[in-house]
């Protein structure tokens, strides 16, 4: 029973057959087989590109480390010594891993929000998580309280809490009885977000010499990456991804409309709540690690959907891998093109991703593929 429903969500939400299947392969079985193989091939390719970009990212940097040295350090991480070891193990590796984690988190959160809101403009920051995180981080930077949570300093902690609390507030503002309307949620998100942004701006105006810290936090970046932060973020990241992955079927069905989803036996309210929680957790984890990095959470889901099709059981893992690979590549460029000076990574994601996105979009238009 469930499989059939699943298939129905997939084919209605789909449209994948419009461009992926040659005419004639109409049998449900054949298309399911094809999908399975396509899915595997896709995941393998994305995984390979992620591994490739991560290897390259560890290899290059402002300082040249020879290949033999690099291999030596990575094969004997505990016994290796010297400056190169510090650079590879303490500076580059956590940074590469952090960018991969944040890229994956933003892409998965973006994909989820786009499906939940049935809105191609949705991104991980759509219901105010970014403004909440910005306020949390700004307050932490200005007050500079000495506290640590799980070894993590005040700025990432308060950014994380700020994002979660804001989305919680937005959710409760949008709730009428037990129902939450998607439109109300979006509007409440925009209103609360604007309000919090205004407070951040106000704080910035009177922040004196700490102003630059706030500005750099808002621009986002991975230069603050540490093992400690990675360890602290990993459980939330894993939980967020797990929640979304376990609800891909619900995502497919919700995409068709709440009514249709209900007819297919989905508890829409519950599924939406879980998915919102998962995506918000991922967004909060990402912003607490890196500040605000735009574009990735908006564009990676679209590009992945164009390539992988709209079935979320493939789209979600593909977005995660694609987002991670893209962010690793972007950060590597950001720290190497004019090394030792670093570019803001958000600049690279927009500069590199924008034209690529437009190219894909145009190609799809030419082939008369809309979605």
């Amino acid at each position, binding site marked *: 029973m469930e499989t059939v429903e699943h298939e129905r969500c997939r084919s209605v939400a789909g449209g994948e057959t419009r461009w992926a299947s040659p005419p004639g392969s109409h049998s449900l079985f054949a298309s399911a087989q094809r999908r399975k193989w396509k899915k595997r091939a896709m995941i393998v390719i994305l995984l390979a590109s992620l591994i490739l970009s991560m290897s390259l990212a560890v290899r290059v*940097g*402002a*300082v040249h480390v020879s290949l033999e040295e690099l291999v030596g350090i990575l094969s004997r991480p505990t016994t290796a010594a010297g*400056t*190169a070891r*510090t*650079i590879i193990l*303490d*500076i*580059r590796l956590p940074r590469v891993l952090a960018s991969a984690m944040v890229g994956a988190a933003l892409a998965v959160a973006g994909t989820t929000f786009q499906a939940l809101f049935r809105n191609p403009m949705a*991104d991980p*920051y*759509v*219901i*105010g*998580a*970014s*403004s909440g995180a*910005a306020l949390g981080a700004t307050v932490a930077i200005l007050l500079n309280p000495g506290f640590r949570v799980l070894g993590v300093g005040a700025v990432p902690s308060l950014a994380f809490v700020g994002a979660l609390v804001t989305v919680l507030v937005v959710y409760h503002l949008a709730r009428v009885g037990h129902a939450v309307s998607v439109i109300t949620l979006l509007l409440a*998100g*925009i209103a609360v*977000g*604007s309000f919090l*942004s205004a407070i951040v701006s106000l704080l*910035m*105006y*009177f922040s*004196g*010499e*700490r*102003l*630059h*810290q706030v*500005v*750099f936090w*808002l621009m986002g*970046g991975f*230069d*603050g990456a*540490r093992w400690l932060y990675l360890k602290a973020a990993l459980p939330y990241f894993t939980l967020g991804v797990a929640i979304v992955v376990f609800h891909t079927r619900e995502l497919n069905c919700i995409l068709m409309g709440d009514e249709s989803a209900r007819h297919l036996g989905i508890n829409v309210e519950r599924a939406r709540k879980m998915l919102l929680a998962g995506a918000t957790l991922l967004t909060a984890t990402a912003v607490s690690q890196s500040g*605000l990095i*735009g574009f990735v959470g908006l564009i990676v889901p679209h590009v992945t959907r164009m390539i992988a099709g709209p079935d979320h059981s493939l789209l979600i893992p593909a977005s995660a891998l694609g987002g991670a690979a893209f962010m690793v590549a972007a950060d590597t460029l950001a*720290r190497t093109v004019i*090394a*030792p*000076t*670093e570019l803001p990574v*958000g600049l690279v994601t*927009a500069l590199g991703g924008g034209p690529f996105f437009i190219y894909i979009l145009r190609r799809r238009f030419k082939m008369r593929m809309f979605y």
Partner: protein
Amino acid sequence: MLARYINRLPQLVATLLIPALFVLASGGCALNRAQSPVDPSVETGGYPLTVTDDMGRQITLDSAPERLVSLAPSNTEILFALGLGDKVVAVDDYSDYPPEAANLPKVGGFSKPSVEKIVSLQPDLVFATSIHEEAVKRLQELGMLAVVVRPGSLDDLLESIKWIGLATSAQERADELIRQMRNRIDQVQSRVSRIPMDKRPWVYYEVYSDPIMTVGPRTLISQLIETAGGRNIAYDADADYPKFSSETIIKRNPEVIIFPEFHGSTALTVEQVRSRDGWSEISAVKDGKVYGIDANIISRPGPRAVDALEQLVRIIHPGLLD
């Protein structure tokens, strides 16, 4: 939501980053220092030696540092003035004075230096400013020594030079430099002190033109103007680099207008100021008292701040120093 920030990025950069550059160039002055800059117990200068930097943090040096990295132009200028030029192994992208400093290896733009690059140079001591809080934290975690130089006033600057000299075993040069700077400051102060308050011209310093921004009373630039016998028209501003409206400036009617010049190019001319609506009525414009001053000397809290002070006196009180 991010679009909110991205759409406003040009404005953000203009209204925030540019004054921020001045904040970091001037080392900032919004906060009070945590402790007195020099620990009285370490005046002797033997190693191991503990110095307290401008953030009140204590750093212990086992021997005189031989490899120095500077993360700000002002720090570079201080180190070179102390005769430590040959020990400086790398500087930030903006360190261009003295000219030989510009040829040194670079560790990146001074807002976000490359920690990786710094580590690879294995410096004995890194000279940062308050903008480098993240990098300093990072370097400390990686077992490097870093100090923060953040003088909030001319007097603070002399104190900073003193502990820098102590830390780098360049005490004599430091004392000599401080003595010279002190003399020149005293010279200015003794002459300016004879001018009664109501004879001191109102000065408007335009940090940035679009939007119009000036300097708040806590900034080093404002203190230099006051020391040079001027009165800052933004004496009551809360922010360090407040946006000011044209009408406030016209109302406060400055008698002297000063603006920074970058690399010899004038950002503003008397004609441009005159052409602003209503500004032709301002005394400074009517009297042609609109002057440029080298941005690098007035916004870097280094030895050349005294040059800036004397230039300001020449602008505000021509002939006073002759």
